[in-house]
């Protein structure tokens, strides 16, 4: 479903991704872990072209994407993203946040969009918050709205960029719960996170990034219980 080949990305003189290969199959949940600055987020942002890679290839649904020629907006419609800082639209209510893209990008009828938005809100447990403004929600609620907003475009792939890192500890669980449910429903997901419990429980594969490269990727059981690479061992010993 997603295939990255030899992806290279630099910012100024700093090379953040040094030839990364990653394949994600349909309905697979891949968790990216690694120290900050290792390139996890950048890799994620290359998948929906919020960052344009310098070299290498990105294939989504078997289609090779050339950022200069392909309509990236069409790609982004199929690849939802959830951000660390939620990035909800503060001037819109929760419901308006969710129907914005379906109505203006997909040209869905507003009634239809609202109906679907309410189903999604039900799914993330926030049906009663439809008419609130984001400012009145807790961090965990905001992130669940953000997930619903991304799902409203009916994406085939969901990217999560440290979705729980900005949350108070007691609010992390509710967001992970929604993500877990999404994974169980068969969504293809790439998740950057520091939540090792989530990785162990939900991921089909855990990939460890260090210094712009993926050093090791394994089923979580093998990954956590029997890491091969020294860097991985070091990293795991520090966080577990």
């Amino acid at each position, binding site marked *: 479903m997603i295939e990255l080949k030899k992806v290279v990305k630099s910012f100024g003189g700093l090379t953040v991704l040094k030839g990364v290969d990653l394949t994600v199959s349909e309905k697979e949940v891949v968790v990216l872990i690694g120290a900050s600055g290792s390139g996890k987020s950048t890799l994620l942002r290359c998948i929906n072209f919020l960052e344009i890679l310098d070299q290498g290839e990105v294939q989504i649904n078997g289609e090779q994407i050339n950022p200069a020629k392909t309509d990236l907006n069409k790609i*982004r419609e199929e690849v939802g993203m959830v951000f660390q800082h939620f990035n909800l639209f503060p001037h819109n209510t929760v*419901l308006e946040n969710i129907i914005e893209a379906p109505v203006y990008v997909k040209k869905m009828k507003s009634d239809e969009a609202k109906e679907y938005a309410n189903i999604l809100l039900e799914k993330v447990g926030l049906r009663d918050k439809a008419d609130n403004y984001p400012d009145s929600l807790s961090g965990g609620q905001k992130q669940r709205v953000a997930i619903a907003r991304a799902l409203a475009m009916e994406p085939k792939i969901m990217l999560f960029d440290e979705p729980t890192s900005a949350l108070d500890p007691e609010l992390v669980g509710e967001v992970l719960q929604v993500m877990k449910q999404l994974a169980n429903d068969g969504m293809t997901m790439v998740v950057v996170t520091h939540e090792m419990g989530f990785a162990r429980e939900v991921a089909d594969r855990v990939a460890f990034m260090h210094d712009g490269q993926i050093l090791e990727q394994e089923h979580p059981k093998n990954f956590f219980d029997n890491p091969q690479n020294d860097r991985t061992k070091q990293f795991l010993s520090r966080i577990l």
Partner: protein
Amino acid sequence: MLEIFQSNYNALFEALLITIKVTISSLLLGSIIGLVFAFFSISHIKLLNYIAQGYLILVRGTPMIVQICILYFGISSIVTLPQFWAGVIALAVHNGAYISEIFRGSIQSIDKGQMEAARSLGMNYKLALRRIILPQAFKRAIPALGNQFILLLKESALVAYIGMTDLWGATMSIAGSNFRPLETYIVTGLFYLVLVGLFTFIFSKLEKRYDPEKSVKRSIKNSKGITVER
């Protein structure tokens, strides 16, 4: 003072009307100019950035009164502009520069994550700007805009120097004929004071209205029907 007010009642109110007309016309035109040049300065096209910079340097670098005189007396050797339009255009072009900076600042002050979230949902740049960035930027621009509009209102007195009988133009001729400049000027000052007060009031209302946190009632009202333009 009351006597001056009474004996010049008609002249002063006619002049007040002209001041209001000039102010509102140049306020609208200036806002459009300001918005256009704000887009120029945030554009990815270098040429447009340069045009915006050139405009700012020229307009901010020369006094308003010089600009009005160039437009009315100077250009009249080529084409004759009616007084009203010379005044309005000069005020609009002059204030447009400051308004464009207000808009640019407020657009750039919106968190980058807003644009990223909009793009990640498949919205193109223009749509994201129009639906997500600008509504937030406008709200943030309101206090500074209010300030600029008050400045514009007071600067409109300069149109008296191209012969218009706005508040200040009328005042000068009244003071010239009754030989009581001090009292006449004070009466006129009060007129401006009331006008500015009115402006300030309107803007503080606007500010409150566009602040979702302060208007919980509005959010309840919205639940009944969100108007969606296509």
